[in-house]
């Protein structure tokens, strides 16, 4: 257990010291959420209707933009070599790295969602359900994006390629998330079904992605 905690602590410390990608993620999220409403126009009634979707897309794009470095630094400096061959279980190391990323980038974004929601004129009674749904879908977001990060490991400027590769995989999650929020608004029982499906999607991503990422990273090192 100490081995895996060491990886989480180290990655958090690096994120704290080299805060570029956290600041970039935060800035990107803020810019999208601030700029997009301007594009919608002056009709104040439209914004609350499209705002949950806007938040969702901003969250998703921020994840894709910031995750490209998840494995790259360890690959470039040789840390990956000893982690692959060591006695520690590589798949758990991957989970730890993704979890550290989630703590350093995703969680702060979730924390600022209430402020963003107020900026977007989202009704107060909708803010908690939005946070809850983004929170339960965030593991799926980051683990699927982590697969993209592993796939584009040896490439320069991999951010755009990750977006192209991974974005289609997010479509079911986006549909479920938006439908969960809409159903919550109109009080339909299928809200709980959507929540269960999103939770299932997240758990499946946590269970399968580490094996897929491990396979990709091992073949990359060979």
């Amino acid at each position: 257990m100490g081995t895996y905690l060491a990886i989480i602590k180290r990655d958090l410390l690096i994120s704290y010291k080299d805060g570029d990608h956290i600041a970039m993620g935060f800035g990107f999220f803020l810019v999208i959420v601030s700029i997009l409403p301007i594009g919608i126009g002056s009709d104040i009634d439209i914004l609350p209707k499209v705002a949950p979707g806007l938040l969702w897309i901003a969250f998703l794009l921020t994840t894709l933009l910031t995750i490209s470095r998840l494995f790259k630094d360890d690959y470039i400096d040789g840390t990956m070599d000893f982690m692959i061959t060591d006695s520690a279980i590589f798949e758990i190391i991957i989970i730890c790295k993704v979890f550290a990323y989630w703590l350093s980038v995703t969680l702060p974004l979730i924390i600022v969602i209430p402020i963003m929601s107020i900026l977007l004129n989202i009704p107060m009674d909708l803010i908690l359900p939005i946070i809850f749904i983004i929170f339960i879908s965030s593991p799926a977001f980051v683990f699927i994006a982590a697969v993209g990060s592993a796939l584009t490991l040896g490439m320069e400027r991999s951010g755009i390629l990750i977006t192209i590769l991974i974005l289609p995989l997010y479509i079911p999650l986006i549909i479920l998330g938006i439908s969960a929020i809409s159903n919550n608004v109109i009080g339909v029982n299928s809200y709980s079904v959507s929540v269960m499906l999103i939770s299932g999607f997240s758990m499946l991503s946590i269970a399968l992605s580490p094996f897929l990422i491990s396979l990709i990273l091992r073949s990359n090192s060979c």
Partner: protein
Amino acid sequence: MKLIIDNLHLERGDKFLFKNLSFFLESYKPIIVRGSNGSGKTSLLRSIAGLLKPVSGNISFFNETDEKTDYLHQCNYSGHKLAIKNELTVQENITFWGRYYKKEINKDLLIKLKLDSLSDISVGLLSYGQMKKLSLIRVFLAERLIWLLDEPMVGLDSESQIVVKKLIEKHINLGKLIIITTHTDLKFGNQILLSL
């Protein structure tokens, strides 16, 4: 205890490196690999460490009781990539490995390698030689059975080379296994020279 390399054929990308390479590594007999640049020294070590798939051939390990066992988790490979984090300080890198391997670092070793006074310095500000010493600390800390050291003396000053050589000798005298690639005049008792 024996590591047997049998008819190894290695290529890097499309480049042929060598084939039909067979030798064995055993206790108290370190192997020193020499060869020109690009002859496949690093690839040989990476292949033994499980980081490079050979085109053909086998690598097998027999433990003290002559049983064939998996050896990859017993290896510690130190290559050209130093596996240290430039964003962190010397002490933070060492603390990470200590936690990772669940081992305490020997403070005397840091003093001998002149790293003790650099503990609060960011690794990005160190010279290559200092980074190399820090990188080797990981190998010494992990205390694995098989050391695969790729050019361990590169960048080290003469005093540090003596310290590292003594640590390698200690490893050999404990009956553990080691393969070293080098261009320097590194010599150990009972060493076997392998030219590529």
